[in-house]
């Protein structure tokens, strides 16, 4: 049998035969003195007893001795073969034991071709000789092959493995099947190494699951998923540094273990991310359930596969602590909501955050981290902003007449983002609770009228549409009505909150028929996921007598006044003014009549 021992290779590169056991010689030298004289006594005293006994034994043992001789000869033949292989290996190692032997590839990459005898001996292939794998090399021939790169070399050399490990054998294991059936299959050496391949059975038992997985996955592995390249490489350092650093791979990838590596197929990388994000539920049940109720999950179920799952914000293997997301640069929302983030960055909140104020809000402060939804700033201003600005109502009352009314009907952003365009949002709300009626319920209330409401109109919904809605809601005895709220046209701009010194404080900004705040009106309907669908409404509805009852709650003195009253007012005031003018004129014109009557009277009195 071919064996490398520490002492085998000598300086000149020749291999010594270690069949001569040095230990045995030393033991032989130790025999002498008492033991030798005992043997002589036995020979003298028992020659007559032992002679015939020895002869008998010889006859009996003859066949056994013959067998031993045959076995010994066969053993000698095998030993001769060992000697032959050892010579070959010794010849190879004559050069490859040298640390300075380096192979340079076409792309200038260098590879040390030094072989560690000890590692090879301990490897699972320790019984093979060099040419068993490197079949093109022999003691007589050592062709020099040029490889473009180290990778190309590894790919070429790995084909030798198939000499013993047939495709059929490899295909039986799903992991191998997955690996080798790919066009860009990694060479065997990527996972197993080259000369120090260890027998898996032994270390597999002592290695942790993660160690076992990382054997391959810490290497440069990738997978092609319908043309997309998916990296399967895990940076061990990053993984260990994450909040899940002490977890085993199989804690999350529960179908995978040291003995199981099922093949899973996905349409694309995104589908894989979505599917794997489900594993978080195992530990983070509460957060997962919150996410299920978010606008993001709703978008996912509606078919928007871009909607974020756990890993989009938290990362897959580099799961960071929560605080990581609370910095400006690390805010995961930014990946999708860039324009919103830009608005936030320039806002009083973003500026405070950048200046190091840890209390300054980030996205999740208003939208929540997992049950992500609209901030409701335009629906119930108090719900969002007053969470932090607890004294806001009291501060507004110090200077703003009817402060509570203003805070109910106007979104905080309407005044605190002074440059943005505004819209009056009409929402169908429950008259008792004030909560918005969602789309499904509204459809139920309005029946076919709902489609009419939401179908495209050239000039938007007019007062007749709103009157129909009002009547239909009344017919259903729904206790629902239209509620108007002033908000911002572009929700992105809501994030660009200005310092309060720039906020709109002048009453005249709103309470003027020319106010820019009331130029657009929209019907807002709450979709199941909480976001709003907007349908344009003709702004004339704000000043229409027909909508006096349908939108009787939203009214800004001076700016959304009824046009009918304007006309009536002019008629009444001019009517009032015309009474004295006309009467005076008639009195003036009838002076002659009265004068004549007076003279007649005087004449009559004179006659008397």
């Amino acid at each position, binding site marked *: 049998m071919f064996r490398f021992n520490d002492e085998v290779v000598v300086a000149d590169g020749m291999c010594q035969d270690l069949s001569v056991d040095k230990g045995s010689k030393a033991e032989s030298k130790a025999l002498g003195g008492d033991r030798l004289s005992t043997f002589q006594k036995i020979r003298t005293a028992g020659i007559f007893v032992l002679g015939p006994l020895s002869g008998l034994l010889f006859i009996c043992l003859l066949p056994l001795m013959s067998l031993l001789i045959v076995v010994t000869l066969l053993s000698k033949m095998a030993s001769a073969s060992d000697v032959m292989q050892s010579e070959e290996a010794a010849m190879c190692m004559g050069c490859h034991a040298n640390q300075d032997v380096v192979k340079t590839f076409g792309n200038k990459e260098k590879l040390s071709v030094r072989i560690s005898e000890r590692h090879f001996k301990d490897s699972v292939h320790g019984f093979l000789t060099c040419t068993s794998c490197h079949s093109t090399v022999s003691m007589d021939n050592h062709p020099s092959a040029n490889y473009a790169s180290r990778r190309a070399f590894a790919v070429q050399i790995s084909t030798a493995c198939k000499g013993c490990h047939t495709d059929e054998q490899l295909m039986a294991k799903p992991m191998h099947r997955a690996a080798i059936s790919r066009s860009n299959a990694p060479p065997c050496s990527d996972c197993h190494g080259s000369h120090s391949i260890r027998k898996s059975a032994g270390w597999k038992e002592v290695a942790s699951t993660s160690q076992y997985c990382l054997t391959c996955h810490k290497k440069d592995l990738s997978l092609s998923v319908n043309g997309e390249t998916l990296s399967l490489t895990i940076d061990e350092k990053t993984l260990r540094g994450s909040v899940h650093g002490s977890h085993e791979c199989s804690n999350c990838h529960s179908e995978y273990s040291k003995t199981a590596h099922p093949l899973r197929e996905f349409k694309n990388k995104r589908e894989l991310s979505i599917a794997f994000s489900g594993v978080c539920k195992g530990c983070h049940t509460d957060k997962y359930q919150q996410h299920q109720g978010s606008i993001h999950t709703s978008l996912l179920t509606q078919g928007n596969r871009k909607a974020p799952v756990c890993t989009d914000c938290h990362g897959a293997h580099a799961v960071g602590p929560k605080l990581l997301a609370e910095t400006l640069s690390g805010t995961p929302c930014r990946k999708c909501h860039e324009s919103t983030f830009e608005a936030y960055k320039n806002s009083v909140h973003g500026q405070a955050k950048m200046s190091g104020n840890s209390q300054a809000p980030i996205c999740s402060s208003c939208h929540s981290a997992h049950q992500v939804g609209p901030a409701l700033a335009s629906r119930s201003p108090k719900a969002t902003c007053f969470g932090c600005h607890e004294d806001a109502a009291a501060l507004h009352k110090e200077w703003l007449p009817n402060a509570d009314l203003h805070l109910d009907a106007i979104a905080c952003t309407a005044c605190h983002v002074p440059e943005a365009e505004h819209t009056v949002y009409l929402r169908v709300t429950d008259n008792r609770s004030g909560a918005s009626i969602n789309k499904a319920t509204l459809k139920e209330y309005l029946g076919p009228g709902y489609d009419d409401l939401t179908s495209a109109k050239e000039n938007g919904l007019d007062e007749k549409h709103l009157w129909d809605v009002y009547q239909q809601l009344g017919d259903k005895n729904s206790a629902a009505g239209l509620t108007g709220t002033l908000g911002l046209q572009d929700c992105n701009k809501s994030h660009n909150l200005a310092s309060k010194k720039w906020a709109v404080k002048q009453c005249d900004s709103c309470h003027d028929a020319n106010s820019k705040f009331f130029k657009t009106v929209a019907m807002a309907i709450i979709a199941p996921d909480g976001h709003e669908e907007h349908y344009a409404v003709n702004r004339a509805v704000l000043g229409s007598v027909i909508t006096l009852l349908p939108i009787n709650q939203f009214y800004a003195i001076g700016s959304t006044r009824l046009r009918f009253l304007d006309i009536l007012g002019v008629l009444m*005031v001019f009517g009032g003014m015309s009474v004295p003018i006309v009467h005076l004129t008639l009195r003036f014109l009838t002076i002659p009549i009265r004068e004549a009557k007076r003279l007649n009277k005087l004449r009559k009195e004179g006659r008397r």
Partner: protein
Amino acid sequence: MKRIYLHPMLVRVCHWINAFSFLVLILTGIQIRYRDVIQVTSFRTAVDIHNIFGFVLLFNFIIWIIYYVVSGKFRTYIPPFSFKGFIAGCIRQARYYGYGIFMGEENPHHSTPDSKFNPMQQIAYLNIMALFIPVQIVTGILLWDVKGFAYWIGLAGGIKVVDSVHVLLYLFFTSFLFVHVYLATLGHTAGEHIKAMFTGYEEVPEHGHSH
């Protein structure tokens, strides 16, 4: 000519406080509602002044009504029980304003402390003092604290309805003011009724004259 004591001191004071408050409320009302047409003061100033004089009007009205009810003078606003006679009186008075006055006829109504108003004035001022002004005050108070009176505003049909009623009466008072002032000049002399509202005494011919 004879002098009759037509307007007691309290009535005169109330009248002029009322008159001034009305003027201020009308002018600030214009500023509150029609800023796109005319801007003399800021909205906030206009609202503040409007609120102050709204309450002045309210307290003035309370004093006035207590005085009129307690003294029994309120009867002068109540038309006679005889509907037929009342209608006939109205027609007679309307005929005077629309014809008789031009022909030099005498005013059919002669003012006395117990009967200051002719039938047309009676019905007009009864509506104004017992209905329009109270409604105007109530709607004004509701608009003064919309949130606080949200329940009542809801009962009334919403803020838009309440404000529309307030504005409608505002327009009526504004237009009526021209008629009221003009009619005040139709006394024995142009300034007679107005002077009486300062002095309390009105000089009337022996047969009496009134607007």
